């Protein structure tokens, strides 16, 4: 019997193989479970066309932007312009828009996670409330008037993105067939606000200025004379016209390239690079889990003249609109701002919260004292140049930009923020090839902010 007892250990080997196999499976499940569950044949999450078959997307005012109809198909808001204006936030049926909630927040819509699986009460998935106000998106999209570009507005105290529009767009119920060949749909799947980078032009001067305020002690007593073309270490930096005699306030409000190029050359590449990095323009923000594109700047190794151009936001500078908006928020908020968020809350079909959304803050993007000075100077831009009358009932501080892009009209930028405890909003508007920043982009901003602050 003792012999058989020993031989029986063979059976233990077999049993051990069972446990080892189970452990291997559990390991694979933990590693790949998410991928397995998001397989399009998974009827818990997808219908037979491969569309996400659970969950509703709503805006902050409970307007339902997308839901699943009785036949199990994805349905969208009834107004076609709203559908286009919210396309990049909501997503299309085919899953081409990477930043769309249907794609990017599929897990939150379905309630799927490794631990509790794809279960959702009543099989309906979750309600995902975006921080956006569909009405603002609608107004911004209308204001862009068919031009390409991006509009973003967010609350720099809470981080809630109230408006996020990217154009061109399309109707998710009637998607275009030949996107690749049609210049009208150039980069239509790209969310320009989160994922695009563009030549910043003069809006970048807010960075150069921040560096100058802190590093050039006599900045506010200096004066310059702009003749329309300024010699920066042997290279010419031009302005659209001669600005004449200027102090730093006037240089900013008239956006004199010559003055800022001289300042940039004086500060040097290392200082400019440090302030750009501190401002968060080279970093990626995680907007409710969506990573923004990082801006890129190449300062080192530039000639003095090229550094001058870089200091006015030309040359090889590229900036992400969202990052610029957050920097504006930080100037408004005394140096740091709330990190932008797109998801307000998620609820399951029983009305219980199905996620936890914490407010996050950026680091110090600009020194508090500098921020206060910058804000004051940007406010003067509005009163002296852009016209405060365009922004009724608002304490606006802003900087425009007209970025030469080589061929075609320049990109029009308008970035800034509102002061005042009731209106903690920072904004950015980009109109590709829109011409004058203050005029084109400024009027888009004015319409959106007017709707936001003054209502209809």
């Amino acid at each position, binding site marked *: 019997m003792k012999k058989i007892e020993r031989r029986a250990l063979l059976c233990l080997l077999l049993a051990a193989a*069972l446990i080892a196999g189970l452990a291997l499976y559990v390991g694979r499940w933990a590693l790949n479970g998410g991928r397995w569950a998001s397989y399009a044949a998974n009827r818990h999450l997808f219908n037979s066309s491969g569309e996400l078959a659970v969950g509703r997307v709503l805006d902050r005012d409970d307007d339902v932007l997308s839901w699943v109809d009785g036949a199990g198909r994805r349905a969208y808001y009834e107004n076609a312009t709203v559908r286009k204006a919210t396309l990049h936030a909501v997503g299309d049926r085919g899953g081409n828009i990477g930043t769309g909630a249907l794609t990017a927040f599929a897990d939150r819509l379905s309630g799927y996670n*490794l631990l509790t699986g794809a279960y959702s009460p009543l099989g309906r998935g979750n309600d995902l409330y975006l921080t956006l106000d569909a009405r603002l998106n609608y107004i911004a999209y209308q204001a862009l008037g068919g031009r390409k570009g991006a509009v973003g507005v967010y609350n720099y105290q809470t981080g809630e993105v109230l408006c996020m529009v990217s154009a061109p767009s399309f109707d998710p119920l009637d998607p275009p067939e030949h996107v690749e060949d049609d210049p009208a749909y150039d980069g239509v799947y790209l969310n320009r606000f989160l994922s695009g980078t563009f030549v910043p032009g003069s809006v970048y001067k807010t960075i150069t200025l921040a560096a100058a305020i802190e590093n050039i002690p006599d900045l506010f007593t200096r004066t310059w004379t702009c003749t329309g073309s300024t010699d920066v270490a042997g290279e010419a930096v031009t302005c659209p016209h001669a600005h004449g005699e200027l102090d730093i306030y006037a240089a900013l409000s008239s956006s004199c390239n010559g003055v800022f190029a001289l300042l940039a050359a004086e500060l040097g590449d290392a200082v400019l690079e440090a302030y750009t990095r501190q401002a968060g323009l080279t970093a990626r923000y995680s907007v409710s889990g969506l990573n923004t594109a990082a801006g890129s700047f190449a300062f080192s190794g530039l000639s003095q003249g090229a550094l001058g151009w870089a200091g006015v936001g030309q040359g090889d500078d590229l900036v992400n609109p969202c990052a610029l908006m957050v920097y504006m928020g930080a100037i408004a908020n005394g140096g740091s701002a709330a990190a932008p968020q797109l998801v307000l809350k998620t609820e399951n079909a029983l009305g219980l919260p199905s996620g936890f959304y914490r407010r996050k803050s950026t680091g110090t993007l600009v020194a508090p004292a500098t921020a206060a000075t910058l804000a004051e100077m940007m406010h003067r831009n509005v009163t002296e140049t852009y016209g405060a009358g365009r922004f009724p009932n608002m304490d606006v501080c802003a900087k425009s930009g007209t970025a030469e892009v080589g061929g075609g009209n320049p990109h029009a930028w308008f970035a800034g923020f509102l002061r005042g405890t009731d209106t903690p909003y920072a904004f950015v508007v980009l109109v590709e090839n829109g011409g004058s920043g203050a005029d084109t982009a400024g009027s888009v901003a004015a319409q959106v902010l007017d709707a936001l602050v003054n209502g209809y």
Partner: protein
Amino acid sequence: MEALFALPQQRMDALTGWLAANPQLCGWFTSIVRFVFPVLALLILIRSIRSLLTVPHLPEVWAYLTLPNGSGEPLTHWENILGRGGACDVVLNYPVVSRQHAALIRREDDTWTVHDLGSTGGVTVNGAAVEGSAPVAYGDVLGLGGVETVLLPVSPEEKAQRRHRRRAAKPASPWLGLVLLTVFQVLCALQLILSAGAQATLNLPGAFLCLSLVMWLYFLTMRLLRRVGFEMETIAFFLSTLSLAITASSAPSALFKQFLALLLGLVLFLILGVFLRDLERAKHIRWLMAAAAIGLVSVTLVLGSAPQYGAANWIRLGALSLQPSELAKICYIFAGSATLERLFRKRNLGLFIVLTGVCLGCLALMSDFGTAAIFFVTFLVIAYLRSGDFATLSLITGGGVFAVLTMLSLKPYILRRFATWGHAWENASAGGYQQTRAMSAAASGGLVGVGPGEGWLHRVAAADTDLVFGMLCEEWGLIIAALAVLSVFTLAVFAVRACRAGRSSFYTIAACAATSMMVFQTCLNVFGAVDLLPLTGVTFPFVSNGGSSMLASWGLLAFLKATDTRQNASFAIRLPSRREDRRGAALAPRDTEGWEQEADDEED
């Protein structure tokens, strides 16, 4: 009959109607109950599993063998090998004793027989040389190569005392687990009614109610018969409950059939267990069982028909379809097990190999390669337990591999079924269709599952049999699925550890073979469904939907029940009788003063 069901059906319709009007409530119920199930399952199983894994397996003492030096060696099995070798049950360290000298074997009626195992020194009983074998009575002098030993009985007092001590290592109390399992069944039935909605029929609560009743009836009856070990039954009833739930979700019309199979399985379990009590009886029926095994697989070969997919291993009798190869497993193990006595009389495995060959041949001809693999692995386990001969078994395994390769070269299309193994996701719409669906559904279940009846995997072919692990993971969650696998593992560990206190090698070999069969079958099923092994289409013991499989699983469990030698634990082991205790009492050594009379659990 109609009238009898009319009222409950009315109630049922009212209930489903009310539930349909309150979907919010159903949502709440499922949301909560899916977390309750794993907790209940843990509470139900953990005690049984822990109890089975930590059984001390205290050896029983059947007699004493006094040695020349005066010490008394206890004989702790019915079959004992005496010799000089370390692997002997009684080690006699004398140069004249052969390494493996003699076997001393007890029969059911408490008579002993000595077998000379070809020793050099020879065996004598009371001075008379033994040729082959001879009976030994208590008090007889047993000479082993001249070394004289005396066989002495155990006094009734000592037996009682030992029993008393063994009773201290009591099996876990089953009642809490039973109550929790009943709660589990009630919640499960409710949840299944919720998810079925208007389609819910009386079958659903009926089957679960019957299951609970049968379970309680079994436990109470066994307790009345003074049996106390219920861990294996708790596990089996738990897995069977899962099986009913899986069936209710995937094939509601087959629910009652599945319950009847469970009931038949339980009956088979009882009959087989009671039958196994008597070793002589079991030994005699081996030939019949071998014939039955061959009969069952060959009749399938002749009459078998294939469903639209898979192997031709089904027999249809009107509305009833059977898989006789499942029942053949029980017969095969019965035929393969052997007592030590037989192992020494017939050392070679010839006939057993022939039996295996016939079974495997028939299974291969009906393309049931999964079952063939199970038989082959079981063969290896039995053959190794019987012979301990690695070399021969390696040779046989090599032969098996060669046979498989030959077959593959003759029938290359079989290979295609294995071509997608490990690449299920690259062939998601072809060869990996079932596995990818199983994995996707399994991942959707998470740890706690989406709730019984709420899954979609049951729409995929063979979901409730071959892919049942996927369905378990989807509807019940990874925790319960892993617990189901762990249960099978526990049975295997129990069977192996029970060898220590095994009475006869017949029981030990049968139990080890039966659990190895279950373990290997579970491996093929679980790992096949999740693409760790090729999908071979075998069932998960107890859990898969299928009457034959359920029947066979309960039958195999009887072999395990027969090795549970804990005091009063198993109905498959006869309680000691007073008459037996009295026999030879006069000869018992009386040096153990103070043995107390403990006779309350004895049978007259």
